[in-house]
């Protein structure tokens, strides 16, 4: 029997087939599986009771992550929807060593079996009294509930972004894409004295446009990322227009002259990459103050409690060691690690024009292709664009593919003016816990050179 989807496919309307009719079913809601969630929570409590017979600081952790990714470009419309499960039970043995076991199935019997196996391996000699207390549930307030969206809804949101981007385009744009991704994480952490769950939703809405200039493609990108629901409106029309303008911008065929120490106004994406690479070595003393803030409202890297159940407070980098409340787990190993959440730079008073107005002879640097860093902290950031500034005004000269060099901490310390509007940059890095860098444009000094040398 032909379905509506078959008919649409037969008519060549494969996109419509994906968006409409019987192919677009609502997903089962993670939050609707109340029975399963309660069974899992009960199993985690059971596991902690088992762990407490032989371990200190017993903890049982569970994560159910639903990840939806919708992409629309010139050739395809694609949506993927995947679920990841991680269960970890752990504790500290009598000798002080941390022990844990990880599994990827959430059946209560398996969770308990993992705890029993861990206890069997640990030397005897210690135990922990338990006082769970009442369960505490945290959840992000959402403007759009991802669990309520069907497959077609996700694609429709990406389509709207693509259409809005197209409205800013010209015939020189040879490639466009728009995307919307969303991680809907439910985690439960049961320890000797707490039983906490949290739901964290992280969304990215973005687009890219590419134009040819000579023999090289020039790309413009726009993205908004944060701890909010999947709403395409988060990405503004002004950002999409700026994306297209960047792709269409013309650059000199010549290479930028090497300067060992130049005044540079770094766009938020550029200083964010530097802070992300060098945050561990940042000290206090410069104008810029960077804080790791897990409680940042709508922060892409925000959380209520860390993955051991500890509440987290902001910490200014360069002061107290960044340990408390920062035990985090990430795929694929789900091992405990310490890492930043939202690295937030304090805002200054300068609007973008005022920042550039302070430059006698220098450059505005924007667009990050990649950043390389050696063990000593020296970076070589490959930026996509640099524009010349003389006596506070852009000269119209611009170059593509430039390299910014220096010591990451030194570049941050040398900041002498800070912009008054921050952007959130969320690195796409699944092998580390979700994190963001929230920074404005800054004025600092660094070496600048052509990335390709004599190539």
């Amino acid at each position, binding site marked *: 029997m032909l379905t509506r989807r078959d008919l649409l496919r037969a008519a060549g309307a494969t996109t419509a087939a994906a968006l409409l009719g019987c*192919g677009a079913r609502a997903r089962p809601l993670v939050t609707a599986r109340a029975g399963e969630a309660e069974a899992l929570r009960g199993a985690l409590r059971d596991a902690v009771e088992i762990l407490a017979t032989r371990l200190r600081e017993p903890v049982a952790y569970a994560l159910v992550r639903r990840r939806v990714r919708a992409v629309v470009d010139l050739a395809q419309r694609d949506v993927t929807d995947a679920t990841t*499960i991680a269960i970890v039970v*752990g504790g500290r043995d009598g000798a002080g060593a941390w022990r844990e*076991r*990880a599994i*990827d*199935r959430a*059946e209560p019997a398996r969770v308990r079996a993992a705890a029993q196996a861990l206890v069997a391996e640990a030397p005897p000699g210690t135990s922990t009294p338990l006082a769970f207390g009442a369960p505490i549930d945290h959840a992000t307030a959402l403007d759009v509930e991802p669990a309520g969206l069907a497959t077609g809804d996700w694609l429709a949101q990406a389509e709207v972004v693509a259409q809005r981007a197209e409205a800013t385009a010209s015939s020189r744009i040879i490639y466009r894409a728009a995307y919307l991704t969303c991680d809907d994480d439910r985690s439960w952490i049961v320890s000797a004295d707490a039983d906490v769950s949290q739901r964290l939703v992280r969304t990215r809405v973005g687009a890219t446009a590419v134009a040819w200039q000579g023999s090289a493609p020039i790309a413009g990108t726009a993205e908004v990322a944060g701890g909010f629901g999947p709403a395409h409106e988060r990405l503004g029309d002004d950002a999409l227009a700026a994306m297209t303008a960047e792709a269409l911008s013309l650059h000199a065929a010549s290479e930028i002259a090497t300067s060992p120490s130049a005044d540079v106004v770094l766009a938020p994406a550029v200083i964010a990459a530097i802070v992300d690479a060098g945050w561990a070595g940042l000290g206090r003393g410069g104008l810029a103050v960077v804080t790791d803030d897990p409680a940042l409202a709508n922060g892409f890297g925000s959380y209520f409690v860390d993955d051991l159940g500890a509440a987290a407070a902001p910490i200014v980098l360069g002061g107290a060691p960044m340990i408390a409340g920062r035990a985090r787990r990430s795929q694929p190993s789900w091992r405990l690690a310490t890492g930043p959440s939202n690295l937030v730079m304090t805002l200054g008073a300068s609007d973008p024009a005022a920042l550039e107005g302070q430059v006698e002879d220098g450059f505005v640097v924007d667009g990050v292709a990649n950043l390389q*860093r050696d*063990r000593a902290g020296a970076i070589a950031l490959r930026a996509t664009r640099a524009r010349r500034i003389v006596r506070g005004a852009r000269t119209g000269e611009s170059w593509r593919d430039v390299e910014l060099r220096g010591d990451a901490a030194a570049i941050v310390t040398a900041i002498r003016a800070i912009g008054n509007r921050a952007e959130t940059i969320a690195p796409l890095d699944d092998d580390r816990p979700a994190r963001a860098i929230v920074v404005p444009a800054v004025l600092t000094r660094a070496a600048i050179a052509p990335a390709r040398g004599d190539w």
Partner: protein
Amino acid sequence: MTADDDQARLVRALGRHADIEDWTVRLTSTRSAWRAWGDRDQRGAAERTHLTGELHRDQPKGRGSATFALAADGDAQRVIDDAMVRADDATGPVWRTPSPAAPAKVELADPAIDPSALAAQVDALAAAVDAAAGGATIVRALVEIAVDELALSTRRGRRAGWRATRVELSVEVRHAGATGQLERRARRLVDLDLAGGFAAARIAASRASAAPAPPGVYEVVLRAAALLHGGTGLLDAVIAQADPDLDRQGLVRYHVGKPIADGATLSLDSDGTLPFGWWSAPLGDAGEPVRRFPIVTDGVATGLGLDAREAALRGAQPNGGVRGLVVPPGTTDDLIAPTTLVVDELAWLEVEPTTGWFRAAIAGGTIGTTPVGGGVLRGDALALVARARRSRAVIATPRFRGPALWHLGALAVE
């Protein structure tokens, strides 16, 4: 419910679809144990499964393909439905799945690794690491031993299964006030070469504080560890040109049958059947057989890495793609003069796959007897490795068999 149950449900559900022309399902079940020490004292174990596959649907306008993954206790039918929709949205040229061929015969499981005693073996490995560190202080270390059981099934009735072992270690050491890094990945414990690795890490640490190479033009020799930085290193420039996707799109510098660069002398084979090779396997992800094949012979491009689809589109046999790298020995060991810059280790490396352009920072090396701890190299990686003079002395790692020294010629150092 077990992962095997999930796999069986998925295969049954796929089998009910006459409108799916072909499919492959792959289940990887991993047991592992690990230990971290130095700045922490942690040990753990993990059991994970990864159930993935791909399906192909033939439409009047061509064949559409999609990959999929089924989570534990996931809804197999929903996953298939979604994949079918995506396959129909991603239709390409018509091709037919090649006839099944025999899996490669390759050993991947270290007989010295007992899957039932991984925790004890991790402890033994950690003790061996401590002993091999010698005078260096271990700042932080992580070792992991894993056993993968792989099961692959296809629509056309192929059933294959094999076991593979993995040993990975990452150690940061402090020696003479500077730090060095040791990274190892192998299928066998004996292939870790802890003594050699720590000796290199100690040397690297001692050179980390040395002054950068003064800017200028040098005759540059890369040791294999530097050439292969991050796995395949500068050879990525050649590997990328063997990508049939890039070849078909015209995004390559040469085609099969043409010299890869002026004056090229390089020969390079892919061998996915190296015993205990890191990239070795009997079958590829889609069930295609893995074979040894030449990528470049005497400076002339001779082959591409072909999965089932690319092979079918070209009327060729699949070879499982580019895997372990084999380069024949060079003709001399007289490659280093007193003024030659010998690079032991790179700090970082970037290679553009389509152009072959690279930039790299030197982490440690020597000019004569003078240690150097910095400097940036840039250039055409493809031309440099194609023309490089290679040592007669060879090394063997789980990912590479070939010359220990590569003389790249005169190169500017910034």
